[in-house]
């Protein structure tokens, strides 16, 4: 077994260095789907989180609790619910999104949106109450107030977005159920992404490919983490030095 792992590891390095087309196709599709889902989630969740923070309304606490509960939404459950909605017999079956990258983007958005929405609310709630008062007192409209406050917590929100990307690229349950792990051929991209491919190759005993994809997945995680640290260090640096 040890030698299998060692040889699998060597083959994996070979697959990556030689830019194996199958590995590249899966990696690019993974990045495309997860970046799209994270971008669209951020586009919707940051304004949504801001609106929830800014307004006082009946049930606000309950909504925030629900959003926070959804941080831990099991990915397979999100996949199952969306599968029921998108299947031919389901209410959204006419969209034809099942087993497509677009469907997978939608599935990942269900997982990422609560994270970004919740962390946006938390970040804004951390803003000093006096700051909100001063912004209004300075003559800001509602939209100007929200933009000013978001800018103040931009690094916390950016961290939430990066965290969301981490959840999107590493989840396997929803991608498997909604995407179906279809192998891409020629111009057809398929729906096989890093996580679903690792799962399949492991079950088939093709450890080399599974390890290669695993290394890439880990590499993406390292890059994301590195980027996050860079952003946060940059913010600290910029805050405490004069230009």
């Amino acid at each position, binding site marked *: 077994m040890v030698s299998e792992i060692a040889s699998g590891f060597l083959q994996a390095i070979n697959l990556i260095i030689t830019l194996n087309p199958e590995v590249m196709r899966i990696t690019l599709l993974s990045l495309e789907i997860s970046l799209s889902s994270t971008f669209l989630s951020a586009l919707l969740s940051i304004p949504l989180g801001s609106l929830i923070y800014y307004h006082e309304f009946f049930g606000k606490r309950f909504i925030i609790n629900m959003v926070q509960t959804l941080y831990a939404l099991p990915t397979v459950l999100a996949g199952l619910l969306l599968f029921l909605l998108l299947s031919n017999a389901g209410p959204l079956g006419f969209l034809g999104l099942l087993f497509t990258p677009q469907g997978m983007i939608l599935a990942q958005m269900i997982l990422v949106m609560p994270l970004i929405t919740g962390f946006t609310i938390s970040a804004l709630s951390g803003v000093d109450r*006096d700051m909100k*008062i001063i912004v209004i007192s300075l003559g800001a409209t509602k939209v*100007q107030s929200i933009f000013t406050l978001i*800018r103040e917590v931009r690094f916390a929100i950016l961290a939430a977005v990066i965290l969301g990307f981490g959840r999107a690229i590493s989840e396997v349950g929803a991608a498997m159920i909604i995407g179906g792990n279809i192998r891409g051929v020629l111009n057809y991209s398929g729906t096989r992404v890093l996580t679903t491919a690792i799962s399949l190759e492991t079950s088939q005993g093709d450890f080399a490919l599974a390890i290669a994809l695993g290394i890439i997945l880990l590499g993406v995680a390292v890059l994301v983490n590195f980027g996050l640290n860079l952003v946060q260090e940059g913010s600290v640096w910029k805050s405490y*030095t004069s230009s």
Partner: protein
Amino acid sequence: MSELVIEAESLSKKYEGKDILREVSFSIDKGEIFGLIGPSGSGKSTLIRLLDLLEMPAGGKLSILGTDALASRSRYDLRNRMALLNQKPVIFNRSVYDNIALGMKYRKKSNQEIKDSVHDVLEVIGLDDYGNRMARTLSGGEAQRVALARSIVTKPEILFLDEPTANLDPHSTKKIEELVQKINREYNTTIVLSTHDMLQGQKLATRIGVILDGKILQIGTTNEIFHKPATTNIAMFVGVENIFSGTITGNKKGEVTIDIRGMIIQAVADFTEGYKVGVLFRAEDVTIHLEEISKTSARNIFKGKIKSLIPTGPFVNVVIDCGQDINALITISSAEELGLSFGKQVWISIKATAVHVISDSKI
């Protein structure tokens, strides 16, 4: 003729069923520095937020710059003509320049106009070279000056200062106080200043409103507030140390004699014989002599023994037992010159006009 910029009538405010402001009525003239003094928690900040239209009152009427300020259509426009400076400087994570420019950007002013105005106010606050610095690197005093600059760059007609120097060192406090006077003088900006520091109120304000427990109890010039407080609560807050209750024993053409448990004191007042009154006079109005004096215009002369000497800054608070404990405030050098010490026999004099008499219902 003076022009009223703020007219408040019976303003009230509640938080969670508790009265924070009760029946607050007053008016402020254009160009005035109106001081709101009161202890922490008396409702000063709440009143400032109501006046800056950041919160709505539970009841009452409010007219600002001749407009009904509580009508929702006028609130945004009115707010744009006013500005607020908080106790704790609110500094955004941007450069000093961008911090100051914020209000002008909200008003969609041109970049050139913003640039000119920001440079002008940077000069006013004495931080000409600080434009590019990140504002969060500034000291507390500098940050408060930047916050003040941000408030005045939009040329507000009314500027609200809510305890602007409460967190600052004496040097920074002095700077802010000078700036407040300069802004008032050069731009004729009406200023409403809340403070728990009565000396600051005395130094800066043209008129003062004393707010205690959510109510404005007295409005007047600094002299009126400090020498003729309307109630004993106000007297205690503005630092009147000698507060007694007594009974009027005679009134000759407005010159009354009052019996304070055996100590007879003369004052100028209109109360009739038998009336229960409060007697108030400031420690600095009490003069200490080493010998009995005859040639003095002061009507009240008492003999007593020194009970304590407490140094307070450049002064000494001397308590003299004259049947009643009387507080006198003199400079340290005067105390040394007179050779004052514990148990020493002295005479004190108080002018009848320095004694303020109030009805016992206000004690």
